[in-house]
């Protein structure tokens, strides 16, 4: 469907969150939902970010702290595993990095223009605890 601007809708138009019918929203994961262009899911706030989080799978223990404390539903967890970050909706607040309990952290903030692969290659090593 072509994108309609805010001033192009008819007066009294009815805007729906989904295209088609969903009976059980609480049991339908986001990738199985047919979002219409009127759900904010189809919008993006990626341009709000100055820094972006990068996720390194190697040290992740799937504690899901990042999932529960993410204010923007940007941590994608499926089957109790953290699988990635939704970069369309992440505002780059950095809460996920703060709450990550692993050593070294599985999530770190980098400038928006940083290259993911090269940053993953030089991920910090485990820090020894100071006595």
């Amino acid at each position: 469907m072509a994108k309609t601007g805010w001033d192009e809708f008819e007066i009294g138009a009815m805007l729906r969150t989904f295209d088609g019918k969903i009976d059980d929203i609480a049991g339908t994961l986001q990738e199985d939902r047919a979002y219409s262009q009127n759900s904010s899911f189809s919008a993006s706030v990626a341009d709000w970010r100055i820094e972006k989080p990068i996720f390194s799978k190697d040290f992740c223990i799937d504690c899901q702290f990042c999932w529960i404390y993410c204010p923007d539903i940007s941590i994608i967890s499926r089957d109790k595993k953290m699988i990635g970050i939704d970069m369309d909706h992440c505002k780059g607040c950095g809460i996920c990095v703060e709450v990550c309990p692993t050593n070294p952290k599985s999530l770190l903030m980098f400038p928006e223009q940083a290259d993911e692969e090269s940053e993953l290659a030089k991920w910090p090593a485990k820090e020894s605890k100071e006595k």
Partner: protein
Amino acid sequence: MSEMKKIKNLKDFSTSADRFEGANLLCPGCAHSIIVREVLNATNDDLVLSASTGCLEVCTAVYPYTSWDASWIHIGFENGSTAVAGAEAMYNALKTKGRLKQPDRNPKFVSFAGDGASYDIGFQWISGCMERGHNMMHVVLDNEVYANTGGQRSSSTPIGSSTTTAPAGRISYGEKKNKKDMVSIMASHGIPYAAQVAPNKWKDMVKKIQHGMAVEGPVFINAVSPCTTEWKFDPKDTMHITDLATDSLVFPLYEIIDGHELNITYRPKNVIPVEEYMAAQGRFKHLFKDEYKYLIKEWQDRVDEKWAQLNRREEARV
């Protein structure tokens, strides 16, 4: 009665399908959406929601977008709770008449409001809902200030906090009145459940929300929601500030059942001084000047006294 969603641990919880969407316009690091997610994910039942005017409402329903995947209504600043109460009354009427299309579905009625819309402007309306005994839940996202309109004081703003209508300066230390004890006021209506929650203690929160949804009758929930813009801290520190708030006992977590049975649900292992909580936020910065240091001590005394009072109430069951 539909079955309660089983949430044993965070991994179980993370299989929930969110009904609140990203790309809302809340500030980065806003605790509002963390609280809303925890509330909505606590149940699998259908939801009838409302939001009173406030950050949550203006940021999640920006024409032509909506961030809600459930029935949601906004009317005015004061009447989010009555809108949901009305929907609940209509649902019950249709149910008795047998005119519901899907009578086996068991929707939950929840209204969200900020502290301005609950402590000040919507107070009378909420009180009405609690008194009439609707089967609904009212969740306050308590950020202690009118954050949406630029940080004016509300009756939830604590002493010493600098706000735009009670600014700290040469002759004033900011807000001079203490915070209203809303949970006690609401519990005094004799409602079946009133509780104070914090988003960092997610398990405690989910337990209270599920209990609140299971009981018949009105439920009042007060959730602390640190505001990165008005409390003046870095967006990444939201959870840290919430930890400080619960561990310094500025926001004690407790529940009041049937208006008299008080249970303290979280006792911090190491109680930290209130000074640490205040030092982390820009709105209390001026209190660390020599002439206002006595206010911090007063704060500590007040928090200690409140904690002792809660403990006494828990013991005495009154």
